[in-house]
């Protein structure tokens, strides 16, 4: 009898151990991802696009069963925990520590805004957790020896080069460049790249005028540009400054043959505030829904269903970020953060923003989109193979412009 009991206990023990190891082999219920996104505060408007892009990608991946993880030999769905940092970098750091300690996230997805990324990406480094973010073009962040920071988004060098490549393609095009430089880290960084690229592509810098963010009177700067006979105006204002600049350009009747204004025209408020005076400005929001890469049509359809319009500019890069993370986890075959980091670094993936690879500094190699407002509509004018319209060059004088829509 004793022997029977002993054997029974042994069998039960083996079964218990077996079931434990089976439970361990099944892995977690979800692959935990975490993001601190400014859903309120000064960045809330554009940051919501980032949140939407992540959510759409996760929904699509989970509908297909999740991500295959070789270590557990099964597909595991993704779970993204989003915390609102209220556009405050201190709160962002708190959130990311919370996500690391309590949600056990294996990858951080980025939020929005250079200052937020500067704080948040550093937490990725502290916790040895991959941090992958879009919606910031500052290149300098990537030059600090970070190992866990990745960004599949065009940076200042690519923005500058793409612009001069497009300008070089214009027959008998303009050559005299004027830079209206914002005295911020991104503004000064881009000014350096514009200056270097202008020389390399055979353009001439004839005026550089610096201003502080919050400037309301650009008239002296505009007059200096006029005096220097600037044909190509390059600038990087925030939205209020950009609208003030464009308004005063119209008041002083200075319409350079070509204007590239980065950042300020990204929001629809540009045309709402400026009307025809905001037309013919070239801008670079990072992506356009007419770039017909694999999956863009489906993404646009889903976005139309959700929002009544094709994908917003930041939805594509955010969606691609999740695609990259999912592919990296699958390639790593494990949820180990370092293995995932190495797999992200080795990425070569077709996404909705094109084929993405990463450089050693974590910057992504991604196509750059140049858009131009034409009759109030943002048209994709570069790269040429995806263009929805030809570049309008030279820009007509303000007095010769038709009201937007032609019905006013």
């Amino acid at each position, binding site marked *: 009898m004793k022997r029977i009991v002993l054997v029974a206990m042994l069998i039960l023990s083996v079964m218990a151990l077996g079931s434990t190891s089976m439970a361990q082999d099944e892995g977690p219920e979800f692959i935990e991802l975490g993001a601190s996104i400014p*859903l*309120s505060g000064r960045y809330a408007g554009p940051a919501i696009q980032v949140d939407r892009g992540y959510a759409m990608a996760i929904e699509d991946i989970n509908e297909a069963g999740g991500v295959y993880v070789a270590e557990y030999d099964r597909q595991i769905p993704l779970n993204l925990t*989003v*915390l*609102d940092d*209220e556009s*405050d*970098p*201190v*709160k962002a*750091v*708190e959130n990311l*520590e*919370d996500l*690391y*300690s*309590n949600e056990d996230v294996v990858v951080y997805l980025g939020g929005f805004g*250079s*200052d937020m990324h*500067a*704080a948040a*990406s*550093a*937490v990725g*480094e*502290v*916790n*040895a957790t991959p941090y992958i973010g879009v919606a910031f073009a500052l290149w*300098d*962040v990537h030059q*600090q*020896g*970070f*190992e866990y920071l990745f960004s599949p988004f065009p940076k200042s060098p690519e923005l500058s080069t793409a612009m001069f490549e497009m300008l070089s393609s214009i027959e008998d095009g303009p050559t005299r460049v004027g830079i209206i430089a914002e*005295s*911020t*880290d991104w*503004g*000064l960084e881009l000014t350096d790249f514009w200056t270097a690229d202008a020389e390399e592509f055979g353009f001439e810098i004839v005026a550089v005028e610096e201003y*502080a*963010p*919050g400037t309301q009177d650009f008239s002296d700067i505009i007059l200096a540009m006029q005096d220097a006979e600037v044909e190509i105006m390059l600038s990087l204002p925030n939205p209020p400054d950009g609208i003030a600049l464009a308004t005063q350009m119209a008041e002083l009747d200075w319409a350079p043959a070509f204007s590239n204004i980065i950042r300020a025209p990204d929001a629809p408020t540009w045309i709402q505030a400026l009307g025809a005076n905001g037309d013919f400005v070239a801008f670079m929001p990072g992506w356009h829904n007419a770039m017909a890469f694999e999956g863009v049509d489906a993404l646009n359809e889903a976005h139309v269903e959700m929002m009544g319009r094709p994908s917003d500019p930041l939805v594509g890069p955010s969606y691609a970020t999740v695609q990259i993370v999912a592919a990296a986890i699958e390639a790593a075959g494990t949820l180990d953060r370092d293995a995932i980091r190495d797999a992200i670094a080795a990425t070569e993936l077709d996404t909705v923003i094109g084929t993405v690879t990463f450089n050693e500094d974590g910057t992504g190699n991604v196509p750059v989109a140049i858009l131009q407002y034409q009759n109030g509509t943002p048209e994709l004018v570069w790269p040429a193979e995806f263009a929805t319209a030809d570049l309008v060059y030279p820009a007509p004088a303000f007095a010769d412009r038709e009201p937007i829509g032609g019905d006013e």
Partner: protein
Amino acid sequence: MFNWKNGSLLVVLVGFIVLPFLPFGGKDNLTLLISLFLLASMASSWNILGGYVGHINLGHGAFFGIGSLVTRALWLEYELPILIALAAGALVAAIAALIVGAPALRLRGTYFAIGTLALAEAMRLTVGNVLPRVSRLPGPALRSYDIVPRYYLALAVLAVIVIFTLWLNRSKLGLGMMAVREDEEAARSIGVNVFLHSILAFVMSAFFAGLAGGAFAYFHVGYYPNYTFGPIWTFDAVIIAYVGGVGTPFGPLIGAIFFVLVRDILSANLVNVHLIIFGIVFILIVLLLPGGFTELIDRIRQYVMPDTEPDTGT
């Protein structure tokens, strides 16, 4: 003198000291507590001028900014030990307050509040223009980043401010300040030097804000230098002081705990509307409890133990 209040304070302090060695002393909790200590330090330091003397300084964040700027520069760029950098940052903030305070304290009431707010905004814009690049720890330093010494530094800064405020609350200097707050003419008539008490409070308030700014500079991994000059550091401190109990030594501590907990609970559970609810909660507290939570605690204590003294410090 040892009493139940000092004993409780000591127990809490010991609890915070041993926390990093306890199971729930993880990085997330330490990070949250650093924010709590910094906010409590800002509210307590604001309270020295705003609560004890009655001058509403809406430019308090500027001294936090000066402290952080000087500390960060000396620590990161000149590689001075953090404690020396911290002391230098606080000292520069105090000197700035002395220079600014002499003319600013000639203003009264709303004019003083607006004047200090304008000064802080001017400093924020200037620092943003002069130092536009983000200040961050380099990658290798981040990979060896340890939160525990940052936690202890923030705790030490708060402890120093609280101990100073407790001393001030019972000192001749503190009584003089409270006399100025209640009635300047009456204070003058009994021999209190109104200007001297005001400027001393301003300088001490700025010194401690500079200390808190230095602790922030040591803690935070990457931020724009003008961020620490932002009005949020002032307004959070003012809200915390009023909610906790302005003019009391413990009010800012109680206010900070409430502020951080409510903010985090609301933002985690009501993502879209948490700021509105947060605002409504604070308005209700200020309306229903003009003396803040300290008043509520006093009422409860006097109800339970009718013979005890109120803790208002007034």
